[in-house]
């Protein structure tokens, strides 16, 4: 229960920070994607089942949050896979910072590729080779830079709200 509340609060904060602050900063490139980071962090801390469900619903929220303008379900699909992938690394013994960073890099890349891939299937004009390359490089680099700060912080929060099991 406490964990669900924490999850909802963190996801909402990430969504609003992204739309109201991060996208406004005019960072070079496309800027970080906070939601991918959040989904990866929860997946790493709480396992694949939690990761996939959280990824799906967080993605769906991002799909309907204005000013999004793409087919519903695209980010839900991408982030469900990201949450699952991160969850698979949950119980690797003695996870180092390097592993975490590698997982974030792979997950961010996977999110962009999946989102763009499905967009290509439904004929989204925004998906061009150069746009994908740009988004891929930018999202991965920014998220990797932010990962050492965000992921451990959320891991602690998740552990604090661990269900008694």
């Amino acid at each position, binding site marked *: 229960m406490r964990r669900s509340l924490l999850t909802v609060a963190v996801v909402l904060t990430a969504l609003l920070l992204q739309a109201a602050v991060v996208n406004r900063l005019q960072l070079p490139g496309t800027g970080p994607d906070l939601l991918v980071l959040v989904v990866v962090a929860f997946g790493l801390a709480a396992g694949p089942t939690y990761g996939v469900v959280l990824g799906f619903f967080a993605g769906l929220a991002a799909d309907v949050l204005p000013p999004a303008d793409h087919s519903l379900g695209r980010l839900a699909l991408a982030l469900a896979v990201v949450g699952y992938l991160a969850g*698979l690394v949950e119980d690797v013994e003695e996870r180092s910072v390097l592993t975490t960073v590698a997982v974030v890099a792979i997950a961010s890349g996977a999110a962009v590729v999946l989102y763009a891939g499905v967009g290509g299937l439904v004929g989204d004009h*925004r998906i061009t080779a150069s746009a994908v390359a740009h988004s891929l490089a930018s999202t991965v680099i920014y998220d990797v830079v932010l990962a050492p700060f965000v992921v451990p912080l959320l891991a602690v929060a998740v552990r604090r709200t661990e269900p008694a099991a």
Partner: protein
Amino acid sequence: MRDSRRARLILAMLLLTAFTLITLDYRSGGGGPLRSIGNAVFGPVERAATAVARPIGSFFASLGHLSSYKSDNNRLKAQNQRLLEQLRLTDADRAHLAAAEKLLNLAGRAQFRIVAARVIAYGSSLGFESTATIDVGSQDGITSNQTVINGDGLVGKTLDVGPSTSTILLGNDPEFTAGARLAGPTQSIGHVDGGGRNPITFTLLGTQAKLAVGDRLVTFASIHDRPFVPEVPIGHIVRVEPTPGQLFSSGVVAPYVDYSSVDVVGVVVGVPRTIKRDSLLPASPTPSPSTTPASPSGSGSPSPSASISPSPGRRSSPTPSGSP
């Protein structure tokens, strides 16, 4: 790998759900009921979040100035600090006021009836989209497919409209296309296309017309002025693309509007029967520098600096119809 069988099952189910959603949304052409719900629910939340987030910028800007107060005249220093703070907030207010004044000036010259608004969120979706949320909606008389302008020219058009917020498509989004006309005697028409990461392009329709660097572009009215009203400045040509073997010539456009930092905008809700041709364009190919605003009587509080912005309450639209 703990409970990976169960996780895989859930993954498969959710992926199926996602594909179903994507297919349904694609078939209905977007803007389904879920999106309207999103606009109605998240719009006010975003608006509130931005109200909190906007001063954060000035806060971070002032952090560097928080000096220690341990010297003898720390009272004076504190006072000085407070005054500096006020000055900084007034700067933000002044910029806001200048943008609003420019917008009203353009709308007044065109005799457009506009609903003024502010941008409360920018879209990105992993960097592929160039959209924004503004703080006016159907309660303010906004509908989808209306022209959005600011003091410099064409900003974009409205997409989905919620009760108190709307989504707009910015002019540099790859999905953006608008009819455009060359200013001057030739009157040749064509279309302007947003390029995303690439520059905005203009394609001239008709094989007779010639395109030259410095040519200025304005919108060409759509049918019933939806989505675009006529004569709104767009930008000027900075490069003519060599198009051997192509029927139509095209060029790269430098827009008058800086899409990455639009803040004060106006949604055009009414147009006069006639607008004098090319009357809204800036004089030279390069956009003229903004005029300095009248000194604002802004106090220290970050209150909305003029009665122009309807951001906090629902006020009626400013209708600058008295001016020429």
